[in-house]
């Protein structure tokens, strides 16, 4: 089959093609799922459908089975995905490991791993954080000691999203120490999670779901050829991933969902007649509207073929804080109903006020906490002294 040149389509035609795909291949019960991070088996139908249709991997180059979308088309892809309520798939393989292997992997690694990501045979998770290495990731201690043509890995990862449905982990491990430059001595290893000595323990989150896990390594033997890039130089490999995709961390999607719930509850309870509520609502509404304008400012850079700088993370800070403000407003409007863990009545409908309030705690923390983002902005954008 000849690969389609998706970038040559008009934006409208591309959008229409995605909608058509969703209409044909996404089962209704998987649309607008409440669960933020479904397990692989729960959404496998959608995963395989995307693969069959050639839509699974939007940004990989065509020669590796991707769509090769430019950033502008990729933004449409992500927009439509959210708008049509497509469920999130376990996407570490597609979004993170694939691009890293394409950039830093050997030809052999690409030939081995990329097709298995597309087929769903390998489901990946990302082993970065450790119990004592969160924001300060470079302090990580999970050790990989050379033993012949293997590394022996011991230590622990945590906050490993979807590790309990993954069979491979992309891990940052310590192969040597340099007390002056802690980023040195970190190596990227691809680890088969069915190897003896790997243990996964899911962690329940505030919403009562188990999105993330602890992963333990007890003398796990990993072949030396599973290194990505140079030994001790893994920090640069791990860092190179973000690129234009950082804009998606700042997308207005979450506050959009939250304000729709707030409006529903406000209508049902007559809150729009209350001037005090209306004033607060207007503030949130305009914050969301202006976030759209700010998002467009960065999206335009990508559409015009430019590259994003560190400044794009103001979107991440703004959208995650706005998400919190709106869900807090919804809880306040709920009155004593805010004692309920499950959804609350809004006229003939129900609203997941508590679910979103709890969910909104997370995005300000993950992907680099907002305080870390501000530290980076201070240096990289404002040029403030250390």
């Amino acid at each position, binding site marked *: 089959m000849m690969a389609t040149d998706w970038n040559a389509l008009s934006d409208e035609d591309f959008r229409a093609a995605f909608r058509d795909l969703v209409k044909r291949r996404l089962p209704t019960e998987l649309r607008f799922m409440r669960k933020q991070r479904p397990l692989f088996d729960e959404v496998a139908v959608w995963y395989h459908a995307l693969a069959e249709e050639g839509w699974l991997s939007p940004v990989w180059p065509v020669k590796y089975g991707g769509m090769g979308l430019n950033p502008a088309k990729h933004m449409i892809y992500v927009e439509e995905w959210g708008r049509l309520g497509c469920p999130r798939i376990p996407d570490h393989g597609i979004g993170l490991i694939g691009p890293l292997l394409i950039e830093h992997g050997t030809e052999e690694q690409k030939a081995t791993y990329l097709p298995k990501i597309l087929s769903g045979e390998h489901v990946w998770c990302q082993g970065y954080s450790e119990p004592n290495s969160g924001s300060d990731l470079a302090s990580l201690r999970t050790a990989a000691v050379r033993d012949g043509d293997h590394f022996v890995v011991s230590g622990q990862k945590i906050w490993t999203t979807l590790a309990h449905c993954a069979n491979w982990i992309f891990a940052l491990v310590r192969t040597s120490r340099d007390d002056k430059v802690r980023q040195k001595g970190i190596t990227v290893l691809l680890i088969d999670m069915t190897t003896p000595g790997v243990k996964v323990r899911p962690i329940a989150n505030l919403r009562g779901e188990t999105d993330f896990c602890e992963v333990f390594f007890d003398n796990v033997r990993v072949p030396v050829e599973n290194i990505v890039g140079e030994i001790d130089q893994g920090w640069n490999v791990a860092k190179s991933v973000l690129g234009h995709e950082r804009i998606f961390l700042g997308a207005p999607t979450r506050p959009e969902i939250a304000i729709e719930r707030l409006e529903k509850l406000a209508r049902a309870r007559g809150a729009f007649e209350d001037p005090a509520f209306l004033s607060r*609502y207007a503030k949130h*509404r305009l914050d969301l509207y202006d976030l759209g*304008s700010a998002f467009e*400012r960065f999206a*335009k850079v990508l559409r015009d073929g430019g590259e994003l700088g560190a400044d794009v993370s*103001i979107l991440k800070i703004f959208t995650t804080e706005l998400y919190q403000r709106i869900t807090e407003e919804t809880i306040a409007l709920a009155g004593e109903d805010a004692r309920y863990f499950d959804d609350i009545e809004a006229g003939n409908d129900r609203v997941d006020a508590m679910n979103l309030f709890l969910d909104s705690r997370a995005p300000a923390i993950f992907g680099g906490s907002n305080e870390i983002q501000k530290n980076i902005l201070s240096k990289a954008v404002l040029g403030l*002294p250390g």
Partner: protein
Amino acid sequence: MPRAIFDDPDGTLAMLRDSVEALSARSPGPASLRAKRSRKGDSDPALWSAMAEAGWVGLLLPENLGGAGLGLTEQAVLSEALGRALIAEPIAASSVFASVLLRDAPSSTERDRLAAGLAAGSLRVSPAWRRPSRHSAARMLAASEDQAGIALDGELQFVDAATSATDFLVVAPTRAGGVLLSVPAASPGLTLEERAGVDGAMIGSLRFERVRAPRERVLAQAESVDALVDNAVLHARVALAAELAGIASKAVEMTISYTKDRVQFGRPIASFQAVQHRLVDMWSDAEFACAAVVNAVVRQSGSDRRAARMAVLAAKARAGDAATSVCRRAVHLHGAMGFTDEHDIGLYLKRAVALSATLGQPEALRLEFVELERAA
């Protein structure tokens, strides 16, 4: 650093920015502002002439009326640059608002005379249309018509460049809906009272006692007057938003530079995380203000009038809040220096407060936005 980013294929916008910088190097805004304040003026005539000569005062007027024939994008860039430079002249009222009224009014000898004079700087045309608020004891302006023309009685407030004015563009209610007419500043029966504005310029109130204007001075009548004023308000709000965004951006830059220089405990205070995070928040607010201004300008060329109005309301609200709150924090981070009249940062704060209060405070604009959106 924050800036309203527009496509600039032929470099016009960059040139406009450069010329504002060149003017501000020759004649710094803060010095002009202080001089104006100490002589209780409402404008700096030399600065205004230079701006007219550069083509900025008549920027929005078409070329056949003596203007530069440019659009809202150029106006936004100009106003932003003036805001940065604290060239605190009444550009939103005496240039933008007046130009849009004259541009949109039906052609007449009087309209053409005012437009040409405004653009050339030979006339100072100051809009007078703000009726006393319901909290004021002042008398509402009323116009009556007879065969000789219009007679005006009552008061109008918040007139910028009132003493400098050669002509006022007066909007008065009539039985038929309203009238837009020009009234020479020297008209018998017209008196002016002034109060000091927080930004250093005097603000005028006009009292009309049987002020008579011949029919030739009537520029528009009946329903069309509301539409004219509406469009002038829209344009002026964009200009104000852009000026406020410029003020916010410059205040962030000044504060970054001050905190990098100021050493306490043996380190520049900009190296402290509490200060750094505040600076990032200020910078982010200024960036959002710039993005909102760009959105407001871009939406004007779309066909959806409601969306275009909403974008302007959002931009003026965002930029007003950003500029006032950035400047408040900027004063704070300048420490005691920030509280002195000698340092320019306080002048930025005062200008921000004044412009944010002009043509709608943020809260009122947000409520108008929500009302428009919910009415749909």
